[in-house]
């Protein structure tokens, strides 16, 4: 399988700014989305993603194609940066996240969608970090189970177990949305 990013990474490693810009345009939105939903805090998500890209620039010159798909590696770095921040932050954030969901928002459709999104994000925030990462990668980022397992550095069976537990928790929290 040919990795579409190999050439860009090599050029970025040689100091090619245009290649760095192209890599950023291709991957930054996805990494920021994962980080934002892992951390629930825009500023922390931006810092995590910036750290991930800094690691990319530092390693680009030594990148060895064929070892791992570049995107898988970058997701892994981003998710690990998020884990670092979550561990530093402790559990305080979870309590705040639970308070975000407010079912009594105006019935206007835009507001309704925004409220729905907030409720889903709040439910996601209550998941343990590994379950949250697994759910996000598979259900939000379109990663296959194999790719998500590689990103999280676990077996596919372990990933499926994380997914099953995460789905169960979300069903319990968001069941009223599903049934309604």
């Amino acid at each position, binding site marked *: 399988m040919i990795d579409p990013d190999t050439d860009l990474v090599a050029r970025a490693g040689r100091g090619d*700014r245009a290649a760095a810009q192209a890599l950023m345009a291709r991957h930054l939105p996805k990494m920021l989305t994962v980080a934002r*939903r892992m951390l629930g805090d825009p500023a922390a998500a931006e810092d995590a993603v910036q750290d991930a890209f*800094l690691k990319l*620039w530092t390693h680009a010159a030594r990148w060895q194609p064929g070892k791992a798909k570049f995107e898988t590696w970058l997701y892994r770095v981003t998710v690990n940066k998020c884990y670092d921040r979550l561990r530093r932050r402790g559990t305080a954030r979870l309590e705040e996240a639970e308070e975000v969901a407010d079912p009594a928002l105006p019935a206007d459709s835009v507001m309704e969608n925004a409220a729905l999104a907030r409720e*889903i994000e709040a439910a996601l925030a209550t998941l343990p970090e590994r379950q949250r990462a697994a759910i996000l990668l598979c*259900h*939000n980022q379109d990663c296959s189970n194999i790719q998500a397992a590689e990103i999280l550095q676990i077996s596919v069976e372990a990933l499926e177990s994380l997914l099953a537990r995460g789905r169960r928790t979300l069903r319990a929290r968001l069941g009223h949305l599903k049934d309604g």
Partner: protein
Amino acid sequence: MGTADEVLSRAAAADDAAWLDHALKGLPSVPVPAALETRILASFEVVTERRKRGLAGAVDRLAGRLRDAVWPGVPVWRPAAALALSLALGIAAGTVFPLEDMMADGGEQIASIALDAPPAFDLGENS
């Protein structure tokens, strides 16, 4: 083949997965702030600059080691100047007195010694 409960539970799990897929993909996309892009590109410039300086530093260190081996304890320019001067002298000498000219003027000497001739030198054995 599982029991009816297992089949139902698997169907429910598949249904949950499909619903979750739909719900999470429907979440609004996260906009990328321009300031973040600028910061990330700035970090690229910093890393690239540092890497270049790292290469220049490696060349400096190599030059320093060579200088210490040739002429320890002096600035790099001195062994470099000495090398340049000797090269210039060599090239000038080669230009003024080309090797072909010296070979062409019949200046070669051929030594021939008859193997049965008595030695031309006396080490004092007969005295």
